[in-house]
């Protein structure tokens, strides 16, 4: 039963990414050129509501379904891993024009070439896993 809910959330997410054009290479390029408000509006309005909702959840200690805690664990403190990892991610995001969510959406939309990007992303994840203990975190 729960699987169907996740499937519906996924389908909705896929349509949303495609229809908002957040999955378009052009929109990502335009964002980094500061050429339009569109992407900033999407992220900004999601965040505006996200901050309000998350604050209320914490303030009133609202539980998830079944009474379990919400997944709002604080992230580990560090600068190096977030900054270096973030910069590498940004380089790839602007080059391939797609972040992980939209990659799956574009695969479903029938863009064969995105499979190369996904293959690269899997390889990058694998190499990170191998090098993890040698990298500054």
């Amino acid at each position, binding site marked *: 039963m729960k699987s169907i809910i996740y499937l519906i959330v996924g389908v909705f997410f896929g349509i949303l990414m495609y229809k908002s054009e957040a999955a378009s290479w052009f929109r990502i390029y335009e964002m980094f050129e500061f050429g339009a408000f569109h992407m900033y509006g999407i992220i900004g309005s999601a965040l505006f509501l996200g901050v309000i909702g998350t604050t209320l959840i914490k303030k009133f200690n609202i539980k998830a*379904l079944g009474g379990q805690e919400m997944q709002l664990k604080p992230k580990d403190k560090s600068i190096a891993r977030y900054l*270096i990892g973030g910069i590498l991610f940004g380089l790839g995001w602007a080059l391939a024009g797609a972040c*992980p*969510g939209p990659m799956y959406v574009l695969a479903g939309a029938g863009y064969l070439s995105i499979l190369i990007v*996904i293959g690269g992303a899997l390889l990058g994840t694998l190499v990170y896993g191998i090098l993890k203990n040698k990298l500054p975190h």
Partner: protein
Amino acid sequence: MDFIYEPWPWYVSGPLIALIMFVLLFLGKQFGMSSNLRTACSIGGAGKISDFFKFDWKSQRWNLIIVLGAAIGGFIASTYLSNNEVHINENVAEKLSTYGIESAGTAYLPTEIFSTESLSDPKVLAILLIGGFLVGFGARYAGGCTSGHAISGLSNLQLPSLIAVIGFFIGGLVMINFIYPLIFG
């Protein structure tokens, strides 16, 4: 009926992204798309190479179902709900044409990079592969991507997520301002 094909404006799309994040929180999960890449590596047997991939991937089954749904959603949207043209700022489109990318306004993704025919060009292949590699490597190093840091993490006022998002933009700006001229110039 043309409105069906119109893109959704930011003030519709952004709140709907927040809605997805809250639905997942209420289901006891966290919105994060790049962790599926790690899960896929684990399923593929990467646990033999690195302990990083030794975890109970079945606990991530829900997220894989979301990936499946996202692909179905992409199919539905591109087939029935879109004319698959993205119109961007004209000056930006003009700048792209100086890079030899002239499909802005006529395609959803630049045909110069994403058409199947372009795959025979080693440069295009390298762009796709290296771009993907950096996204995968960077997302795991930073512990999240756009959904995990820029949306979930910043919503929870996490300083690490702010550092990561600043990193995303440093990387993106370096790429389009300094590396694009080398690749496409």
